[in-house]
């Protein structure tokens, strides 16, 4: 008998898009499409069990083996560096990690740079590669306020369309890295459910190929 695959999806738009890819690949789960208060959705026929998790927690569920497979943004993988297999770049949820700040103003290079961000590790690594001394201000949301209130010189954050930045008189200064959704898998699960996960990789890849 084929083994069930547990899949962690990130709550929100990205997760919905990812579920669409999976359902096109033959991993439909009618339950998930109904709106109800259930937390875990199962389809024995296709051998999958989905659940929604906070996007930044998906990698934790996978690393700890509660989910065999997960969908997660590259930003989360770069920030937390979980020990998992990164199997497919789904090419959805595309955006970039960028440095942004007040429009037409570049922070001076003669002092320590104050950086507000949700991604302290990405910011640290980026500025270390430039040899720049920085002061990290870790925030959990509404990062854009920090430079407006002069708490930070710049922010390091995800930029999708740039509208929020523009409306607040901010602009992206430089790009750090391109981001998109990735399919990850637990390293131990991959060994014990290898046939199932490898079949899934093939099906998802061909579903993605059909789209483009």
């Amino acid at each position, binding site marked *: 008998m084929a083994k069930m695959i547990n899949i962690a999806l990130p709550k929100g738009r990205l997760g919905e898009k990812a579920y669409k890819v999976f359902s096109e690949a033959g991993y439909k789960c009618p339950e998930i499409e109904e709106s109800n208060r259930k937390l875990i959705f199962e389809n024995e026929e296709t051998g999958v069990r989905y659940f929604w998790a906070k996007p930044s927690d998906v990698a934790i569920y996978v*690393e*700890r*083996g*509660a989910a065999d497979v997960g969908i997660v943004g590259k930003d989360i993988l770069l920030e937390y560096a979980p*020990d*998992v*297999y*990164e*199997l*497919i*770049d789904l090419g959805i949820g595309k955006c970039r990690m960028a440095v942004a700040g007040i429009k037409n103003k570049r922070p001076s290079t003669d002092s320590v740079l104050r950086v507000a961000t949700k991604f302290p590790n990405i910011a640290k690594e980026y500025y270390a590669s430039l040899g720049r001394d920085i002061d990290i201000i870790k925030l959990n949301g509404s990062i854009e306020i920090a430079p407006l209130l002069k708490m930070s010189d710049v922010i390091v954050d995800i930029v999708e369309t740039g509208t929020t930045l523009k409306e607040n008189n901010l602009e992206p200064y430089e790009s750090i890295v391109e981001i998109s959704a990735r399919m990850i898998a*637990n*390293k*131990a*699960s*991959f*060994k*014990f459910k*290898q046939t199932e996960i490898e079949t899934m990789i093939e099906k998802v890849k061909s579903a993605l190929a059909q789209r483009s």
Partner: protein
Amino acid sequence: MSYREVLYGEEAVILKLRSLYETFGYKKYSMSKFEEYDLYLENKSFLPSSNILAFHSPSGKLLALKPDITLSIVKNAKGKAGAAERVYYAENVYRASKDDHEIKEIMQVGLEYIGEVDTYISGEVISLAVKSLRSISENYIVSVSHMGFVTGLIDEYGVSFSLREKLLRLISNKNTHGIKALCEEHKIDSRLYESLEVACGICGDFESNLNKVERIAVNSATKAALDELRGIFSVVKALGAEENVVLDLSVLNTIDYYNGVIFQGFIEGIPCNILSGGRYDKLVEKLGKSGGAIGFAVYIDLIERYCKSDREYDVDVLVVYSGSDVQELALKVAELTANGESVSVVKNDDGSLKYRKKVVVQEVGVNG
């Protein structure tokens, strides 16, 4: 089943492993919990984390709680040419956990062979790794790889030192799209990407996969690695340990410890590898000894953490007593324990213990 018949996971496993290792002539190696801090300072690149618990001894020496056993074993090995040493250990090590950076005590059982390592020795050690896991659970997998294969490929295409580590990390995550992007960005020969894509995809039956990678073995280093793996597998087979041994060329270790064959063990239900090992000649050389070494460690604490036995009862019989006739009480306890039942004697049943049967011993007589 009486709860006493349930195996106490950790302790039972340690006993089984000890007798297994002794069958193959490995000697128990006990050591102190401390080691001189300088040893770790000098060999930092061989440690998975630089977070070491150090303190001053009363005589002013700087000591450390051991973060690793292998270093101490190699340091104390005689390292005489032609005299091999086979040892095993069951010790606690102290390491910072990745999640909260707090120091954790981790129970490790491991085995080391120090001396000239040949194909038979590698096969013997891997067989013991396989049999170690088999004694814990029948649902195990041992993935075997060879550092020389992947590094041989990387060296063939002249990859700079700074990219090397990035590439190794991508390979160990089977991140083929990442390898492709990195090769394109740094204008590395696309044949490297093509070969690594094949290597990352290898995970499964040992012999048929060895034949599959034959065609990407472009130079003498990669060919030698495959030949060595083939030889080792024939030993593992002869020793009756080939079941569930797979070839997985993405198994790597970025810490500067291993140089040849490398392997990891998994048990179903535990989300990370419970066994890790390989060849580490470089460390032996660094510590000024001759010969090579190969060994592995089993992270015993994972068994307790993930394979919890959901015991129905804490004890078989809860004996609740009141009054002062302790002799009668003791006789009752003696009778129960003689019948092989476990007993907990308490004054009040406060509900904190789960039991199968309750016996109340009162001043007048016994009410079952």
